């Protein structure tokens, strides 16, 4: 190793350390922003080092450098514009799009390592770069489909694939076969590399298309882990410490988050990735409905309950975000707090469209993060709450989860039914994602307020204001 390489190695190591420290600071909302900034500085240092190294050791073609700079300029503008413009409710799609481009870039770097050297690279490069191509390509198309599904693209919603998973198996086999051929027949590397890329790209499509829209957050997280691994593989191929460590960190993050999410949804990771909710669950639900009737209430009545309560717990769910009613809920909370009511927000781990998404949506509506309480901490508080106001959350409040034998059995739920009074704001009488009736709605202490969450909350706010005036 000559001097410049040694310096570069240590600078890349410094960047890697800053990524770890940055992620470490994410352990509290107080320090998280600084953590992200430290990580960004680490990134800038690594990129500057790469350019210094490039200038110091020389390059082979001016055209390549001009194209590199042009590409960076275009990418930077595209990145900043999309990051500044995106609505917080659309965050999962954007993360998925960034994942798409990251996976694509990793695949291209790896592909370049295999194809452009004049003579065939050694086995080590073929294996690591080959893995980079495979994983990067799968992530590229997979994340693109995931983003499309989250965006609600109609074409993707209707699309079903024939063969019940046989296509999955077929393209896995084809991808692996061409990858193996690439390693044993480096003379034909153009053919095998192109086939590997194409098959992996198609596999990404057939892997994600059958998976339901509600499972997309888990898929995004898994694909995020894949991109990280692809980057690490590219790093092994070009022997760069920054790529290896950063890629491994992201890989670990993706896997850890995927497992946490699957646990919160009460489904093993492999069943989420295999696609589709089992038909059996729906069948058993039809015969096994809870008894009793739902009691409807009015906005005025809800306002009275809230104003005379000492402690109110809000339970926001996906429906709240769909109705874009975060700000109304926050306003109602603010109003009640001014009146002396204790208000907190119960956040289920999978509320929203990706883990922690509800927290971001409520943060945008200026709800302080210390009023957002995790499942484990809020559940003991429900019995002492006078009113629990459920807005657009369904399955995560279903007491049936405590009994065995239902599709939601074993799923961690918010103990909303233990509050003295429960008010559920819901668009219609439809069932939740799990396809079963929510027993909570039939409890004696539960009242339903049907209608759009935004309009409903506005009506409640108006009624509360009238009472307090």
């Amino acid at each position, binding site marked *: 190793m000559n001097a410049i390489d040694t310096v570069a190695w240590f600078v890349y190591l410094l960047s890697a350390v800053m990524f770890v420290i*940055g992620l470490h600071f994410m352990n*509290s*909302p107080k320090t998280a922003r600084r953590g992200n900034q430290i990580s960004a500085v680490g990134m800038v240092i690594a990129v500057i080092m790469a350019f210094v190294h*490039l200038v110091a050791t020389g*390059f082979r073609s001016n055209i390549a450098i001009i194209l590199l700079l042009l590409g960076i300029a275009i990418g930077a503008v595209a990145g900043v514009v999309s*990051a500044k413009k995106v609505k917080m409710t659309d965050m999962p799609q954007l993360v998925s799009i960034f994942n798409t481009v990251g996976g*694509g870039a990793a695949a291209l770097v790896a592909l370049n390592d295999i194809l452009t050297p004049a003579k065939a690279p050694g086995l080590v490069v073929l294996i690591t770069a080959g893995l980079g191509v495979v994983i990067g390509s799968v992530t590229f198309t997979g994340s693109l489909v995931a983003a499309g599904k989250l965006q609600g693209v109609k074409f993707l919603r209707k699309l079903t694939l024939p063969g019940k998973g046989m296509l999955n198996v077929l393209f896995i086999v084809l991808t692996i076969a061409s990858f193996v051929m690439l390693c044993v027949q480096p003379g034909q590397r153009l053919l095998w590399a192109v086939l590997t890329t194409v098959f992996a790209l198609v596999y990404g499509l057939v892997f994600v298309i059958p998976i339901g829209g509600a499972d997309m957050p888990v898929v995004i997280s898994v694909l995020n882990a894949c991109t990280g691994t692809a980057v690490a593989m590219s790093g092994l191929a070009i022997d760069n410490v920054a790529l290896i460590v950063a890629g491994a960190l992201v890989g670990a993050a993706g896997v850890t*988050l995927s497992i946490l999410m699957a646990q919160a949804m009460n489904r093993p990771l492999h069943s989420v990735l295999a696609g589709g909710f089992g038909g059996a669950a729906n069948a058993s639900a039809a015969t096994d409905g809870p008894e009793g009737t739902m009691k409807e209430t009015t906005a005025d009545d809800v306002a009275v309950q809230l104003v005379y309560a000492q402690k109110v717990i809000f339970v926001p769910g996906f429906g709240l975000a769909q109705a874009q009613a975060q700000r109304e809920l926050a306003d109602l909370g603010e109003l009640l707090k001014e009146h002396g009511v204790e208000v907190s927000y119960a956040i289920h781990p999978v509320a929203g469209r990706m883990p922690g998404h509800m*927290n971001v949506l409520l943060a945008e509506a200026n709800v302080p993060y210390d009023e957002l309480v995790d499942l484990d901490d809020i559940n003991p508080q429900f019995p002492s709450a006078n009113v629990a106001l459920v807005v657009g959350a369904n399955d995560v409040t279903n007491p049936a989860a405590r009994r065995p034998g239902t599709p939601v059995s074993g799923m961690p739920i918010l103990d909303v039914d233990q509050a003295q009074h429960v008010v559920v704001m819901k668009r219609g009488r439809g069932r939740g994602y799990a396809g079963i009736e929510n027993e909570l709605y039939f409890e004696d202490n539960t009242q339903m307020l049907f209608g759009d969450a935004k309009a409903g909350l506005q009506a409640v706010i108006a009624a509360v204001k009238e009472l307090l005036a």
Partner: protein
Amino acid sequence: MNPLVVSITLFVLALLIGVEVIGKVPATLHTPLMSGANSIHGIVIVGVVIVAAQANSPLAYVFVFLAAVLGTMNVVGGYVVTDRMLEMFKSSKPAKSADTADTHEEAGK
């Protein structure tokens, strides 16, 4: 020692650090965490720069250009949007005023 052996060792150790660090992040921050981790894999842009130094064929030019666009979009967009999210997280306690009081004190000294 074979550099690949060292690299694989690094990879495995970094995986372990990742699991350890990520496990401590509260659920509140999982969305920014995912987005932040997402921007870190934009490090692939360093790989693009390194590859660009060796590029001298039309095929390689195409790879470099496309990878530069995609990789930069990943890294720049990722950090900007994560910062935008984290900026919104505020405590109900008046932490801001305490901070400014501190700096005033220090300025006084």
